[in-house]
């Protein structure tokens, strides 16, 4: 990898200072750096100044309330995995965090960084000389999407593990920015575009995540990856399920690694109130396949990832349904 571009690092002491330091097109926020630094080395993301937010007190801490859990964006994934409250009251989040990358990454990688990570593609996450010989791609310095050459858009894939878990739990994000603070559902942060997958304004900084704690729901997450110990999801499915007697009273299915955004599977309303029989699973299979659009952005065939995604959804629903008996 080539030498790092010239840049300066600024260390603000408050969120307000961090936002005031931000310059559109020049600055990037830096926390754990496990996603950003390799991208800077590969020259696929650029910055003249990095604003180190890892020391900001406002981004720290996990606070449990009666109805919800507040998780600071600067909480490390290791802390999230090991936190007793999270493990007891939102085990899905602890599990999803435990499946991110390797243990050394999780020590410094943060919740905010994982959620806001860049989209990935085989033709994008490569060294400069690799991309030169392949005439670059639409997402960085080129003009054609190497995955879908006739396409007008980029199909780089969102590969965060926390996002589907947060979507399945119905979490919301607290964001501070130059125009003030606001709260948005997780789904509203993302767009179906590999190049501009975050719907954030310049200078916006994720402060914390608010996870509602709903009684009676169980949830789980599974992912497909090549290296079992450390890898991005090729297909990841999170399911939250509520069982009432022998029927399913509530169901949320979210996916990652399959689109340019982490998405909630739509069209599941018709399945509420049903028993998970073959007709149910056929409809679930159809709904999952309709939501996802895996492309040739990884070395694993898109058709296989599609089949795995549907299979994981079924497996998780069956497991959670049985466990909730």
């Amino acid at each position, binding site marked *: 990898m080539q030498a790092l571009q010239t840049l300066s*690092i*600024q260390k603000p002491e408050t969120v307000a200072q961090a936002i005031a330091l931000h310059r559109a097109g020049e600055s990037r926020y830096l926390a754990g750096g496990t996603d950003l630094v390799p991208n800077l080395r590969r020259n696929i993301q650029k910055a003249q100044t990095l604003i180190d937010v890892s020391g900001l007190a406002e981004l720290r801490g996990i606070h449990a309330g009666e109805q919800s859990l507040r998780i600071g964006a600067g909480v490390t994934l290791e802390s999230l995995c090991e936190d007793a409250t999270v493990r007891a009251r939102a085990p899905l989040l602890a599990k999803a965090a435990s499946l991110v990358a390797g243990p*050394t990454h999780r020590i410094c990688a943060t919740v905010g960084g994982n959620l806001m990570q860049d989209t990935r593609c085989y033709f994008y996450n490569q060294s400069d000389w690799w991309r030169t010989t392949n005439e670059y791609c639409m997402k960085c310095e080129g003009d054609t999407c190497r995955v879908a050459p006739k396409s007008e858009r980029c199909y780089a894939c969102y590969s965060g593990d926390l996002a589907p878990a947060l979507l399945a739990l119905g979490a919301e994000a607290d964001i501070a920015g130059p125009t003030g603070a606001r709260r948005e559902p997780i789904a509203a942060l993302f767009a179906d575009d590999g190049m501009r997958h975050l719907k954030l304004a310049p200078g916006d900084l994720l402060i914390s995540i608010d996870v509602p704690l709903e009684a009676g729901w169980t949830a789980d997450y599974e992912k497909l990856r090549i290296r079992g110990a450390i890898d991005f999801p090729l297909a990841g499915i999170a399911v939250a399920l509520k069982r009432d007697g022998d029927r399913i009273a509530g169901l949320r299915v979210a996916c990652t690694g399959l689109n340019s955004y982490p998405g909630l599977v739509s069209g599941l309303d018709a399945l509420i109130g049903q028993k998970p029989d073959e007709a149910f699973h056929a409809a679930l299979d159809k709904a999952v396949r309709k939501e996802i659009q895996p492309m040739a952005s990884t070395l694993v065939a898109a058709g296989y990832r599609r089949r795995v995604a549907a299979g994981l959804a079924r497996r998780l629903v069956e497991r959670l349904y049985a466990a909730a008996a």
Partner: protein
Amino acid sequence: MVSRKGSGDMNQNTKRILRIQVNGRWREDAVADNQLLLDYLREQLYLTGTKRGCDGGECGACTVLVDGRPRLACCTFAVAVEGCHVETIESQSQDGRLSPLQQAFHEKLGAQCGFCTPGMVMAAEGLLRRNPHPTEAEIREALGGNLCRCTGYVKIVESVQAACGAEKNADEKMEERA
């Protein structure tokens, strides 16, 4: 106090004085903002035991300890560990004597080509400080981010077990059973 260093001429790497403890010794060095911990250790301090492997956080060869916890030096800016205690593979042996982990890697053939070994030893050191008697599963989990292209994982896990006395305990159990 907000640091606005480098907000002027962007064509020059801004440098600042980095106060840092490396292998037990405090030092101060002029370090550019864009300098990674790996480059600082290898090229400025000549501590070349820490290896540059994939250079992208995928192989763990550059693992060092920052305040006792494993950290990927290739994904960490040097100025980000200001005031911290950084330990590299060079801190393991004392007065010419190998550390228990190094001795175990030597005796149990935990090193083949040896390129991943500094990262493996430091990741294992980080584990043993938190958990002096890990199970095999815990060792495999802790070394999950460290890649050995000689694929000598069995010997590496055995080395870590030997270093923490797990194997000795197993032998003792065998004797007890006999």
